[in-house]
């Protein structure tokens, strides 16, 4: 797989703030990869997302996306390459109706109307919102609004989709639906779409190909979800939630039951429990 995003020694400090939000970050993300970034509040996750899109300008270091350097001269190229879904479903809904919102990014790029009409239908179908074309945002649920937000990003056909805590304000069902949609999209588009999901949600992170752990602006761990989640102690140390299966394992170990040391998903844990009970 080829490199798509490359960060070399990137640092950023917010104005009027002594502590840097990101410190000497070095990172590469491959084409078509699905990366989850986790970290407690204030660990620099959202800053990272905004740097990729030039919503914030790095103090030092270089960011390259698909060979294009992130700098003011390439601003619009970068924004064509990177699409972003933010946390609050209400505050990123620009259009007066679903169709208007999806078309907003295309209008900005001067795409002709015939193409817009076609593509609005196309992307709404991808996120299963075709029946809601003329709905106003006030009449949609949070999860539906976030699906529209994904659709409006897809309409500009970016290479990178950044989900900046996009499921944080949703109810459990909306959250599951959204992860399912992203999973489906990823399966359909494969290497054409690179997903960076910034999240607190373990379930969402577990769907990714790779998990990055950020703490106080530095990258402290990176690996497959199974590797990262197997070490519950480190996760706790950095103020992160532990997957339910790991929590269960820890509680069982406390009661003197021998548990497997490798990471298990919920299904894996259930299978292991069945096995160990039927062996008795």
């Amino acid at each position, binding site marked *: 797989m080829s490199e798509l995003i490359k960060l070399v020694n990137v640092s950023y400090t917010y104005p009027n703030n002594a502590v840097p939000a990101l410190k000497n970050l070095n990172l590469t993300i491959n084409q078509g990869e699905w990366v989850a970034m986790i970290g407690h509040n204030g660990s620099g996750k959202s800053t990272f997302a*905004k740097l990729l*899109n030039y*919503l914030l300008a790095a103090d030092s270091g270089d960011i390259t996306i698909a060979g294009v350097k992130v700098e003011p001269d390439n601003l*619009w190229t970068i*924004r*064509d390459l*990177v*699409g*972003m879904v*933010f946390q*609050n479903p*209400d*505050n*990123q*809904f*620009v*259009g*007066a*109706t679903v*169709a*208007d919102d999806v*078309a*907003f*990014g*295309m*209008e*900005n*790029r*001067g*795409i*002709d*109307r015939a193409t*817009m*009409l076609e593509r*609005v239908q196309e992307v709404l179908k991808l996120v299963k919102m075709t029946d809601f074309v003329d709905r*106003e*945002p*006030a009449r949609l649920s949070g999860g539906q609004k976030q699906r529209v937000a994904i659709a*409006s*990003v897809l309409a*500009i056909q970016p290479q990178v989709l950044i989900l900046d805590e996009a499921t944080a304000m949703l109810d459990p069902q909306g959250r599951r639906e959204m992860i399912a949609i992203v999973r489906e999209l990823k399966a359909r588009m494969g290497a054409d779409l690179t997903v960076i999901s910034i999240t607190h949600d373990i379930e969402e992170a577990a769907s990714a190909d790779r998990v990055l752990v950020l703490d106080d602006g530095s990258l402290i761990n990176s690996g497959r979800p199974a590797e990262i989640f197997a070490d519950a102690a480190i996760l706790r140390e950095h103020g992160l939630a532990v997957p339910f299966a790991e929590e269960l394992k820890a509680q069982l170990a406390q009661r003197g039951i021998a548990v497997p040391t490798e990471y298990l998903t919920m299904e894996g844990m259930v299978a292991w429990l069945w096995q160990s009970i039927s062996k008795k």
Partner: protein
Amino acid sequence: MFNNMIIGRYMPGNSWIHRLDARVKLMLSVFFVLAVFIANSVVGYIIAIVFAALVIQLTGLGVRVFAKGLQPLMWLMLFTVGLQILFIKTGHVWFQWGFLSITSDGLTNGVAIFVRFTLIIFFSTVLTLTTPPLGVADALEVLMQPLKVIKVPVDDLALMVSIALRFVPTLMDEAETIMNAQRARGVEFNEGSIVKRVRAYVPLLIPLFVNAIKRAIELGDAMEARGYRGGTQRTKYRVLTWHTQDTVAMLGFLAFALVLILVRVMGW
């Protein structure tokens, strides 16, 4: 609290008027107000009333809806009409008490003003009742295009109007949530003296204002991330199309205006 307000409210429907182009409706509403002032005789007013009645009939919403829109303005109308009747001193005097007098001219003027008021309110509610707010905003944008010549940022204004409209229900919901949250903490709205009431609204207004600023910052980020770079060179997803019925409406209005002018010139 906004339940009985009919002004500015949109009532979905599929009548002939509903399907008219928003630009036509907006222009004709403005022209109608001007046309009403052409009428100055009984014949003229009857023609204007018949025309307005015809238009109301075409909206398919029923006169009652329109009459309800009149209610909040009733006192203003009665007040103006009252002033006209009591303070006009020309014409045949029927009743005199100190400086107040009721004269034939005063009465006719009062009635004329009442009729004008009613007609203008009825006709302008036709626009808002049959056109979704977005349609009105789109129409405004198109009709403001000539202002570009004198450097008015029409595209930016249009975007501001459409964002404002889109956030009205969101902010209303938020205001209600904050109000309930403050009530739960013991703030009493609508009780006590005027000063007390006004002060009770501070815990509502400040959070609402702060949140609006937060929203604006986030919305700005989202717009930029989606490639917004000012009003120029944008294409439009939403377009207004001119149909034959729009031409028919324009011609119909023109005929009505010409008749009014004729009536006035001939002095009927």
